[in-house]
């Protein structure tokens, strides 16, 4: 059987969902029989590859780089799974929306900084005005909420996708789980 080409990426999130992924423990060995991880913080791959079957995206979209990445992911992946509340609702990442990016930068780089009072302009990407969930930028195929999504829910979801059967994710996880 041809292995599923799996990508995972961590955008504006805390990496907790990726930690949860690792919390599948010995079940990772079982999954490794069915999937090839072709792009991920877990593997050393610089460019997002082509012909990815499934990309698991953690985190919301909060910079111009996030937008560029999610568009590339959509172009190169057959399916996208939004993993965790940040990817689905904005969650903690979107908390700054209530005050705006300008206020956050002012707080971080001026009010609370002891030296070098200036906004970052090189290397780091530019913040968007509003942090948005994935589905407000691209089509998302599956949603798996949780903060972080429990390892059991990730396992059941991946197993179901591998075996091509439907599952009710609402029995496994919910917003804020």
């Amino acid at each position: 059987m041809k292995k599923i080409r799996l990508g995972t990426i961590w955008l504006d999130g805390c990496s907790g969902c990726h930690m949860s992924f690792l919390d599948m423990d010995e079940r990772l060995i079982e999954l490794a029989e069915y999937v090839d991880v072709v792009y991920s913080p877990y593997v050393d791959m610089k460019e997002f590859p082509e012909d990815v079957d499934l990309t698991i995206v953690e985190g919301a979209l909060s910079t111009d780089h996030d937008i560029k990445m999610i568009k590339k992911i959509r172009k190169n992946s057959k399916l996208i799974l939004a993993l965790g509340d940040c990817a689905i609702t904005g969650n903690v990442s979107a908390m700054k929306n209530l005050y705006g990016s300008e206020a956050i930068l002012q707080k971080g780089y001026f009010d609370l900084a002891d030296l070098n009072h200036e906004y970052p302009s090189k290397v780091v990407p530019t913040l968007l005005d509003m942090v948005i969930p994935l589905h407000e930028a691209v089509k998302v195929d599956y949603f798996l909420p949780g903060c972080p999504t429990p390892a059991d829910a990730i396992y059941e979801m991946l197993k179901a996708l591998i075996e091509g059967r439907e599952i009710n994710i609402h029995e496994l996880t919910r917003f804020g789980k």
Partner: protein
Amino acid sequence: MIKAKVRVKNFKIDGICVTGQSNQTILEVARDNGIDIPTLCHLRGLSDVGSCRMCIVEIEGRHEPIPSCTAKIKEGMEVTTSSPEIKAAREMILSMMFSERYHTCSTCVVNGDCQLQSKSVELELSHSFTPYLNQRFEIDASHKNFVNDPNKCILCTRCIRVCDEIEGAHALDLFGRGLGTRVIHDMDEPWADSTSCTSCGKCVYVCPTGALYEKDISEEEIIKKREIVTELVKNRGQK
């Protein structure tokens, strides 16, 4: 006061023949017959206002669905409580509630004990179909025991009803219109300065979300005693 004569009416819910009294609502008769209709702003013991629209049902011959908690039964009516259209409408309503204000479950004090959150599981809402509005409201934490956070309010008005109908104080009411509507104390004064509030805490207990909560209690400890009102009303022998 002359009481209107109560009559017995026969009608159908989901094709099942049911009987109710003419002063009953569709929701009451449905529940008496073990037919489940999802609700959110409804709380047994309080009056019904139909503000959340979660309990909408279809009536044969009517164009638009109506909230079953406020609709009185009629002889021969045919009610449908669940259809693809109703399901889609309920999902959209719930979606709008989530996106209208700032319901971040993971940072909310009632995470795990929230009726909006549990509704997303019950109605199997995967994500919000409407874009987030990112509105911000000032939090009123002036009261010594309680906090009013309009960012998590769904405007169900349970707090207003319990304060008026059970406590008899009517310290709370709605202020403003549309998306900017919020629950206020007295003439929009800080909660601590409200002279009509008795600090009984019933509004906090009945709140379905984390909009009203007790101070100095962590997420793990919080228990909303929503059925306390139903018990109270029962003991008073009102309903």
